[in-house]
């Protein structure tokens, strides 16, 4: 019998769907950033930048986050944001992308500085933060 290393049926642990979705969102964000980068590259070189890639990629990111945005934003803010994201102008879409970035930070998907800042020169601060 040949051992099939791709057979995952016997695995007892699996990745929760929320984690997979988080990774996909990060991937989409990275794609959107690449599109924005190339948009600016064109713009700074003096050429007319094509906006379709930026608009479509930021739009996809928006769709991934849509249910979450509906819950967390007020109806007015949500409409305002979706107007930005689906604008014809790439500059306005980029503004919308920056709003999405803030949402991703709130959801702690892109937050890096989530370690508590403590003054370790006071030993009791360190002891208590380490659960001692």
């Amino acid at each position, binding site marked *: 019998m040949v051992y099939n290393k791709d057979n995952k049926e016997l695995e007892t642990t699996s990745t929760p769907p929320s984690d997979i979705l988080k990774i996909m969102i990060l991937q989409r964000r990275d794609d959107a950033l690449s599109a924005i980068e190339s948009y600016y590259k064109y713009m700074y070189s003096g050429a007319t930048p094509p906006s379709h890639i930026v608009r479509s990629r930021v739009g996809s990111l928006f769709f991934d986050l849509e249910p979450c945005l509906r819950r967390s934003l007020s109806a007015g803010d949500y409409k305002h944001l979706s107007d930005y994201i689906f604008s014809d102008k790439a500059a306005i879409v980029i503004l919308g992308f920056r709003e999405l970035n803030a949402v991703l930070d709130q959801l702690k998907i892109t937050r890096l500085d989530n370690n508590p800042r403590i003054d*370790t*020169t*006071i*030993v*009791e*601060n*360190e*002891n208590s933060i*380490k659960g*001692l």
Partner: protein
Amino acid sequence: MGTTQKHKYDNGLPFSSLLDVNLNSLRDRIAAKKASLVIIDGGVGEGKTTLAVEVAEYFQGSALNLRHQYSMGGIQFQERLQICVDTNKLTVIYDEAGDFSRRGALTEFNKMLNRIFETYRGFKILVIIVLPNFGILDKQLFDNMIPRLLLHCYGRNQNYGNYSGYSLYRMFYLREKMKKLTVPPQAYTSVNPNFRGHFLDLTSERSAELEKVSLEGKAKVLSGNILQARGLMPTLQLCKSLHRSRPWVTEKLRKLGIKPDHIYKKQRYFDKGVLERLRDEV
């Protein structure tokens, strides 16, 4: 022209500023009836006892009564601790003073410490332990999270001494490093301290007083050890060996008409043959 020795820094304390903040942070813990221990370790002549007295006096807010709050050896420590509880003193110092030179002393010491912290934690006293290397302390003390601050003394010169302060969290790392290293004190160079500082000497009068108490303690330990080396046993040891109370042993000694071979500092020492005679009475 001679220079005058400085005894306080500009902050009005005999040690650098961060140490006072750290000691103040222990007050809340002690007020909440949580056992707290400050360990001061370091080589011979690094100023451990000096720093211990300075720390205790700062914590207490008044001069330390060296006769009641400074102890050398386990038995004295328990007595002094009781005195501090009775007189509402806030700190007590335990200076090992060669107490660990006896075989089995460490086990006894750790057992005693564990028992003391179980009993005395409710009495809101800060215990300061002075010893050459904190690695000898029992794991259980650390598991119970009793030591809160370690002050490691090093590189003392004529003008000042140095210390590094470590949290309990870092003490765990230090202990682990010490186990692995051939030269255990090198662990202090591998783990960064939470803070560092300097401390100054006590005033000459205070130093002389401390030295007197310290030498008395050491002399007592030495003489006691000499007598025990001669094969004599103090009453307390008879009690421990027979698993009987002191009044029981005293009563039997009186009944059998056994006189002590030697009396030193009110402590009665008996020949080892007495133990066998008392065993027959058990």
